[in-house]
């Protein structure tokens, strides 16, 4: 009869750190950590030595010194006496402006093109393929500077709008002027507005008119949502869906119209005075070029994502929906899209992220985004390359990581529950 015996107790030997797989992973990790710490320490000591040699003390104090340069495209008050930190914030807001504008247009364009690429119409499908291939295979920086060159070289100058027989005319009933310095569009004005309020020790001026409009819009959307919910309940209970579109539209439009009337809303049109346009909102040529190029470029990628997403849904789904008696529009809304979005959204968001990162190429056309202010002029004026570049990277990293967090949250919320 055999008895079960314990394996001989092995005492720990030093060589087991290398030859025993139980300990080897520990060894590797410790070696990696030590190597990493040595590398970091080496970099930091080099940096300290170099900075000492150059007579620079790493500090962020320069951020509160007057910037001394002007920023032509801005959302907040700014003048050349404002501190560098404010210039950086303005730059960040410009980055976000072009990113948001770009994401919206890229999505609209991309979805349209992606769907049209699947069209049964041969010629349209081919045209869209040509669009996608030609925009995807050429660098985005080339598109940006190309767009800028086209705008500055081929569009009319403001002086061309002068005189009796002007070469160029304003578009859309004299309200929009497209020039090589940018596009002038009407601006919203409030003749009896509530005014602005300063927050954070006069750091920012917040327009109360805008706040009121946004608050009202939010409230209207909530009420509209409630109406929809009630319609859903009625449909679930009785099988008949009450017609609600006029109520849902009215609850948004009518209060807004009243508020705008009370605030004295009107448009300020751009006018030609002297050699340039005054009044209206001036979208600079750099913003237009960047916006256009980024959205056209990203749209090509989004189109491919949308196409792949739709193709990923098997044909049986459509057929099953038809067999259940759903109309084509409801098939799309209730069956295809919810499934396709699961495939489409994650790469879509990562393309938004790419667009935001690509907006840093603004520096090539002189649009004052974060790269242009903090890592551009501020760097050159203060000579603080270490602090500015690290701070700029940190800001971009924050933006990227928050977008990835949203993406992970979404991925988890739509994950198929497997049993």
């Amino acid at each position, binding site marked *: 009869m055999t008895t079960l015996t314990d394996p001989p107790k092995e005492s720990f030997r030093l060589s087991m750190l290398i030859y025993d797989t139980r300990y080897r992973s520990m060894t*590797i990790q410790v070696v990696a950590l030590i190597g990493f710490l040595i590398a970091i320490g080496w*970099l930091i000591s080099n940096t300290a030595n170099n*900075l000492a040699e150059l007579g620079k003390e790493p500090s962020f104090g320069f951020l509160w010194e007057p910037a001394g340069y002007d920023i032509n495209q801005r959302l907040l008050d700014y003048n050349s006496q404002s501190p560098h930190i404010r210039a950086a914030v303005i730059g960040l807001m410009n980055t976000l402006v072009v990113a948001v504008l770009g994401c919206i247009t890229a999505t609209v364009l991309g979805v349209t093109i992606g769907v049209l690429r699947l069209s049964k119409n041969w010629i349209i499908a081919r045209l869209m393929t040509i669009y996608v291939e*030609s925009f995807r*295979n050429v660098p985005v*920086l080339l598109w940006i500077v190309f767009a800028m060159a*086209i705008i500055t070289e081929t569009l009319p100058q403001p002086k061309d709008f002068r005189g009796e027989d002007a070469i160029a005319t304003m578009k859309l009933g004299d309200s929009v002027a497209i020039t090589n310095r940018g596009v002038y569009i009407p601006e919203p004005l409030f003749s009896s507005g509530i005014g602005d309020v300063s927050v954070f020790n006069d750091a920012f001026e917040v327009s109360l008119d805008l706040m009121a409009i946004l608050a009202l819009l939010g409230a209207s959307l909530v009420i509209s949502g409630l109406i929809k919910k009630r319609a859903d309940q009625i449909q679930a209970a009785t099988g008949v869906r009450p017609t609600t579109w006029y109520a849902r539209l009215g609850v948004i439009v009518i209060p807004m119209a009243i508020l705008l009337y009370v605030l004295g809303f009107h448009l300020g049109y751009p006018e030609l005075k002297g050699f340039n346009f005054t009044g209206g909102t001036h979208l600079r040529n750099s913003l237009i070029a960047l916006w256009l190029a980024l959205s056209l470029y990203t749209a090509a990628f989004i189109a491919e994502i949308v196409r792949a997403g739709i193709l990923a849904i098997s044909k049986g789904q459509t057929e099953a929906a038809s067999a259940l008696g759903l109309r084509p529009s409801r098939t799309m809304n209730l069956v295809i899209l919810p499934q396709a979005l699961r495939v489409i959204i994650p790469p879509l968001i990562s393309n938004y992220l790419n667009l935001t990162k690509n907006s840093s190429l603004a520096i090539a056309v002189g649009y004052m985004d974060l790269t242009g202010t903090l890592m551009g002029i501020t760097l050159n004026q203060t000579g603080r390359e270490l602090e500015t*570049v690290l701070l700029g990277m940190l800001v971009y990293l924050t933006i990227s990581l928050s977008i990835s967090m949203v993406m992970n949250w979404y991925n988890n919320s739509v994950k198929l529950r497997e049993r």
Partner: protein
Amino acid sequence: MSEVSFVRTEMLPEQAPPATTVGFVGWIRHNLFTGWFNSIATVLSMLVIYFVLSKILPWMFMSSWSAGSLHECREAIAAAYGEHHEGACWAVIRERWIQLFFGFYPSELYWRPILAFFSLFVALGPVLFAEYVPKKLIWFTAIFPFFGAWLLWGGSIWVPISAILGFVLGYVAYRVITPILGSLAGVIAAAAVPVLWWIALASLFASSLESIIPLGIEAVESRKFGGFMLSITIGVVAIFGSLPLGIVLALGRQSDLLIVKALCVGFIEFIRGVPLITLLFVASTLLNIFLPPGTNFDIILRVLIMVTLFAAAYMAEVVRGGLAALPTGQYEAADALGLDYWKAQRLIIMPQALKISIPGIVSTFIGVFKDTTLVSIIALLDPLGLLAGIRADSNWNGIVWELYGFLALIFFIFCFSMSRYSMYLERKLQTGHQ
């Protein structure tokens, strides 16, 4: 009684389908004019195509190829095709294309980048089209990195030879030490000996051999590199540097070793979270601060390192996708066969994971090649950087479409052929279940 049949006894010959459903007409009806909506769309797109072509074709072909300036160009076109015709001024391409391809590389040495470019294809042959080229060519592929760099930068031939010698010494050390001290010591020696050689002895070896047998070609400074030559150099180095680095990072990210994993995740997420342009700023302004005082190495080398690291982070994510897509059964089967980690990776996991990730890898390659244009922002003279100079030239002031169109076309040819190659490769490696 005669036989009466009420049913036809012989088959009728098949009739041809209606003329409107077959052939050209049928194709047109089926693809272009199904229903009123499609018909309108077809007509509209034809109008758009006509409009675009009617603008572009005369502009392209009724143009001027020989002139010294934009002004002369316009005059020549007006003389040839009438006052109001707008034609392209291709003369600028004819005058500057060499510069756009080679930058300020000395013109008597153009054969070197050209030879390097074509030997790149010879070197790629065994990798890209393995079944069509002799196996022996792989040796050329192995020495190409040194040979190509030597052709481009020139200088003494002993420098690349001493660099190769490092690898040879590493191999010899592995072979000598493994039988004596075991495989782990062999691997450590194979890694340590070349590093020691390169740090301590290589330059001494090269310079002493150079003084005994001076053998070399004229050296060219990095700042003379420019145009597409620069783009391709950066692109190729980044592409082939990033693949192994990316695989290592992906394995690190997938591994069970907590610290190694954390380091890899940190590196990948950091690099992917910041725009490339900020990394190029690091290359151009900060790298000198991070390195020991007095180090001052070439800007192109710094850019190469940064672009390679950048591409490696993206490559790591692509490879990780391939690793994650592999069924767990493959890992378990490798374990069941008793393979250790590296054998399992080399024989089972990697060949399949890399095959799955080919589309992603190639699109990363394309992205890296397109991103090489960013170096124009830190004042390197890639095609876009050269373009700014040409447009500022008083002779060509005001020229837009011809130059940008030309650059876009060249980039398109490179990137498009890469994407077609990836499709070919996908089809070739398609072994599995449809």
